[in-house]
């Protein structure tokens, strides 16, 4: 089976869907001849032409707003916002507009729109580029939020997103874009939303994460194994819909849980995970659910990012604290 990294997996998903469905188009900043700043759309303009692979003006709100209109016209737009942090310039077109359009039109209209956006720290990018603001969109009902952590899921989840009749925010972990290859089949396949994936089995504690933090948790699990602690790693894959059942079943098995994310701690999605576990399986818990996030300060200069982001050391320490309870 062919090996692909996340960039290649995303490119493969876009290529397959554009080949299969004439309505699918890609639009955003520099997605054409450059192939996107991370090259995820490389080669698409040559294959599908400039009507379906469109370099737009530098204006995020109109990239999203126009995608809504394009969808109403019968196209299937896949918009790229160059970095998730810049969705701030389009926020009103995402939550309030895309997310509510089906309801506001009493079901007459729906918006089959995918917004792709790379995000996350660890690549020494300048300010705003690394912001992990995914939880802000959880408060925007009507939007699905997808956070792949590996090449196989990236392709399957992106195809699922493009085919979903409702708007999807698809966040790509830029730190992992080229970090490794995995088996990714040629041709279209889908990974369903709302199905968390147990990426590592373990008996003592469950590490819950999504996107690039899954990779951190896997490293933490290796480190913990050396100390005799068996840690499972659960990749949520999608925040909306949230796989409450797998989350609760898995954490109930280990009785202990640490949630890890790159977003600032307070009101991050880890709080939602923790509250859900409290409500659903309180009596199966052997210890309080712990959270490890970035600190509650703005993303610092790149030279300081390693001190800001959740680190291997902080995850290991959190697990050890939960083991002591």
């Amino acid at each position: 089976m062919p090996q692909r990294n996340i960039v290649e997996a995303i490119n493969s998903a876009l290529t397959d869907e554009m080949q299969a469905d004439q309505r699918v188009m890609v639009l955003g900043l520099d997605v054409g001849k450059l192939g996107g700043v991370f090259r995820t759309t490389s080669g698409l303009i040559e294959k599908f032409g400039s009507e379906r692979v469109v370099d737009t003006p530098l204006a995020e709100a109109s990239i999203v707003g126009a995608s809504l209109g394009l969808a109403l016209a019968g196209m299937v737009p896949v918009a790229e916002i160059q970095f998730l942090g810049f969705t701030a310039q389009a926020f009103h077109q995402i939550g309030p507009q895309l997310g509510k359009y089906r309801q506001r039109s009493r079901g007459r209209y729906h918006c089959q729109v995918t917004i792709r956006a790379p995000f996350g720290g660890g690549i020494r990018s300048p300010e705003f580029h690394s912001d992990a603001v995914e939880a802000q969109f959880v408060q925007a009902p009507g939007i699905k939020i997808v956070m792949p952590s590996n090449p196989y899921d990236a392709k399957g989840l992106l195809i699922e997103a493009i085919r979903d009749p409702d708007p999807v925010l698809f966040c790509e972990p830029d730190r992992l874009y080229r970090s490794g290859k995995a088996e990714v089949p040629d041709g279209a396949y889908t990974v369903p939303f709302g199905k968390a994936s147990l990426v590592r089995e373990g008996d003592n504690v469950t590490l819950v994460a999504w996107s690039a933090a899954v990779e951190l948790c896997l490293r933490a699990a290796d480190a913990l194994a050396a100390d005799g602690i068996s840690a499972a790693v659960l990749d949520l894959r999608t925040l909306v819909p949230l796989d409450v059942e797998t989350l609760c079943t898995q954490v109930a098995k280990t009785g202990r849980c640490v949630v890890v994310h790159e977003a600032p701690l307070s009101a991050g999605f880890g709080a939602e995970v923790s509250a859900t576990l409290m409500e659903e399986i309180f009596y199966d818990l052997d210890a309080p659910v712990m959270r490890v996030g970035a600190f509650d300060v703005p993303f610092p200069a790149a030279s300081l990012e390693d001190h800001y982001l959740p680190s291997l050391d902080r995850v290991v320490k959190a697990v050890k604290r939960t083991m002591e309870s």
Partner: protein
Amino acid sequence: MSARAVVSKNRPVAMQRQVLQPDGKLVDGAQPMEEEFLLEALRWMMKSRLYDHRVIGLQRQGQFGVYSPGMGQEASIVGSAMAVDPARDWMVPQYRELMASVHHGLPLEVISSQYLGKIGPARIPEGVKVLPTQVAIAAQLPQATGLAWGLKLRGEDSVVIAYIGDGGSSEGDFHEGLNLAGVTKAPIVFFLSNNQWAISTSRRVQTATRSFALRAAGYGFDGVEVDGNDVMAVYAATRAAVDKARKGGGPSLVEATTYRMSFHNTTDNPSRYQDPKDYEEAKTRDPIERVQKYLASIGLWDGKKDEAWTEELREENDRALKLAAEAQPPNPDDVFANVYQDPPLRIVRQRSELAGGQR
């Protein structure tokens, strides 16, 4: 009259800044609308004003929701709507152009039911090419551009008309929407009703530009100013822009200069900020009276006709309002309707919680 070229439904028309003066006399050299066509326009304008009066009354009695009337702007509302084809063109409203949407095929009882909180009956029927009203000001503009761009990509013979006001032109979405339309040469007409007020904020402090239409130059397409209280001029200017868009000529911006002869909406109190003299002055330019004066001058209008039409239109409006009042009110469960095609499990559970089941 017969010697003069007239504007009719099936003929291209040139842009005209003003055709009919406030005194009901034709501008020298201007082309008036064909008589039947003008009578149709007058009927819609009267319908709009009568509806406004009726529902404001109902709102004051607690029988209608918050409402933004179109009084004073009927020529802009009706003249622009008559310039697009409901069978193939799309209308993207803001919120004050209710009767434009009705002209475009949205039944009056449907849009009325929205003000009564009747969720299901307010759904825009299939086949009616109208988008929902938009009160997140200017958010509809990038969307309208995307719609027009998409229709072009799909090879359809359609034009989009998108409504905005003088206040809305200050929003970032106005700039982004118009800029993208220029770049994509989208078949769209941006119709800006300059009614001088954004709630209580005067057009004078909204922008330092002397004309909103001028802004089109910055986006690489044409902008025209038209007397927005002159239904013939509004029709001609909009129709010329629509024809141009349909032929592949790209977008236009039409600025209709008018005056909001009422409040922003039923919660507003213009006496706190509006000089009564401005209102009195605006009344002398009333869009309906000027057409009636003109039609009277050619023997097509008199007090009897006015009475008869008023009676008919009131009945027509009341029939729609009765249907809306009788329409099915929503169930509590409708809180969950039409959010996702396949709702996440969590929402399914919340739905059963509201229904009295277990969480």
